[in-house]
């Protein structure tokens, strides 16, 4: 479980723009949950997730990972990083080794695991993200864009973290690549991982996550199940987030007097409409 208590953080860039990046954040991420962290560029979401494995230290407040306070100076942050895997935005830009295999092995090797264990983990991680054994011997730079991203994610998965945090995992991918990444996230979640991912897109959150946290101007703006959050479409639009078309369609129909429950996927929408048709016929 990830627990954040009264976290504050300001960027240190001279006196001129002392913009508080994070203001009084309190959060709990339950074990084996799948959470989307939504907000604009500059809303503080990337800063927040970099706190979760000690890459940034807060000005005040505490962070606990499975009961260990990682904000305690005595905590061994390297150990924390093996429990909290962090996949950066455009992670393929960090690939560096001659082969995909060696790149994925980088994390486990840093953990000082035995050669057999490293090997086992590399194969396991590659299988999880859907990379063939043949591609493991290729240079990472020979892979396609989507494959590169998968290889980079495998590099983090090979450390077998209990918690996986991903910054804009689908950024820059085409629709097929996006679907692939979100299918992977769902698979990892099913296998028992705790997953938190950031996104600009309410649509991605609606399709993938169980819970949604909305950030605005360094604060938690809203938090709840996907259904609860999308029921507040108007508020979200006010802070400039674009709600998916389906939510807007449902809102408009409701305003016209139709009995449409809060929906956030196209399948729910068509079901709702079909139910009304069924109701009038029967």
């Amino acid at each position, binding site marked *: 479980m990830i627990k954040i208590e009264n976290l504050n953080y300001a*960027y*240190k*860039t*001279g*006196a*001129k723009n002392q913009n508080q990046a994070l203001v009084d954040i309190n959060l709990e991420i339950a074990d084996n949950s799948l959470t989307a962290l939504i907000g604009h560029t500059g809303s503080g979401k990337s800063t927040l997730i*970099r706190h979760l*494995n000690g*890459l940034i230290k807060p000005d005040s407040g505490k962070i606990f990972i499975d009961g260990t306070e990682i904000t305690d100076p005595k905590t061994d942050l*390297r150990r924390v*990083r*093996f429990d909290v*895997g*962090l996949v*950066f935005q455009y*992670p393929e*830009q*960090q*690939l*560096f*080794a001659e082969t995909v295999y060696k790149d994925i092995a*980088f*994390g486990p090797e*840093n*953990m000082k695991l035995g050669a057999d264990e490293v090997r086992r983990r590399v194969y396991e991680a590659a299988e999880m993200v859907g990379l063939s054994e043949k591609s493991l011997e290729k240079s990472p*730079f020979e892979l396609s864009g989507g494959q590169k991203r998968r290889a980079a994610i495998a*590099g*983090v998965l090979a*450390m077998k973290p209990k918690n996986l945090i991903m910054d804009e995992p689908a950024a820059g991918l085409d629709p097929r690549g996006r679907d692939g990444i979100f299918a992977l996230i769902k698979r990892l979640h099913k296998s028992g991982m705790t997953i938190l991912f950031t996104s600009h897109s309410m649509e991605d959150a609606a399709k993938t996550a169980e819970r949604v946290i909305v950030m605005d101007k360094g604060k938690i703006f809203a938090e709840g199940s996907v259904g609860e959050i999308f029921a507040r479409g108007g508020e979200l639009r006010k802070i400039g987030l674009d709600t998916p078309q389906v939510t807007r369609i449902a809102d408009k129909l409701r305003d016209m007097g139709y009995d449409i429950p809060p929906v956030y996927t196209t399948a729910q929408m068509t079901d709702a409409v079909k139910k009304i048709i069924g109701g009038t016929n029967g």
Partner: protein
Amino acid sequence: MVDILIGQYLAGSSALHRTDARVKIILLILYAALLFMIKKPLSYAIFAAFTAALTMTGGIGFKTVMKSIKPLRWIIIFTAAVNLFFTKGEAFFSVWKIAIAAEGIDLAVKMTVRLLCLITASSLLTLTTPPMRLTDAVESLLSPLARLKVPVRELAMMMSITLRFIPVLAEEADRIIKAQTARGADFGSGGIIRRAKSLVPVMLPLFISAFKRAEDLAAAMDARCFISGAARTKLCENRLTPLDARAGAVFVVFAAAVMAAELW
């Protein structure tokens, strides 16, 4: 977050901002030459005061100056220490086995003031001059070399692009370091070879990214009709104004004061 000031420009409209970039470059060179000729404490005081006055004229805050000094602090401390401990002379006082000469203190202080003045003055040039004006000025000052077939225009363009990409690449480096740290990379321990090896996961992605950026930039320049070596016109040509004459006069007065202090 990285915060690098090298080659950064702070928009403004002070007299220092409006002075022709070529004039500023020439005066900076003279300033540096003069700075390394002086010996008397009074001259150093005049230099420090003049530099402070320039900083205020440019509307540059103390914090900003400190930021440009900070990355070079180790060089300053090292230089001061070398002068302090290795200057021979009569022991002024001694701690344990280390004797410190009066000459050492004198030299250490002077070297520190010298470096601080020089760093501040050079930062003032880049802080108050838009990079394009700066490159235009360099191009203009070096133009006699073009006759010797030195590709001055290309060099100036390279300089301006380098300045433009320093902050971008610094931020990128910071991001890659963080990302590899998240994968358990350890940059701080081990011998020199181990440390050098531990930099590969940072340097390689950084190079690849720099090449990618260079390729993108080349396409973006091509798309806007850039042809290497072709004559270009300029939106703002560096042109001398009465202000530049006044800047020159101020400098002459300052130089005269320093000389007087030296000869006194």
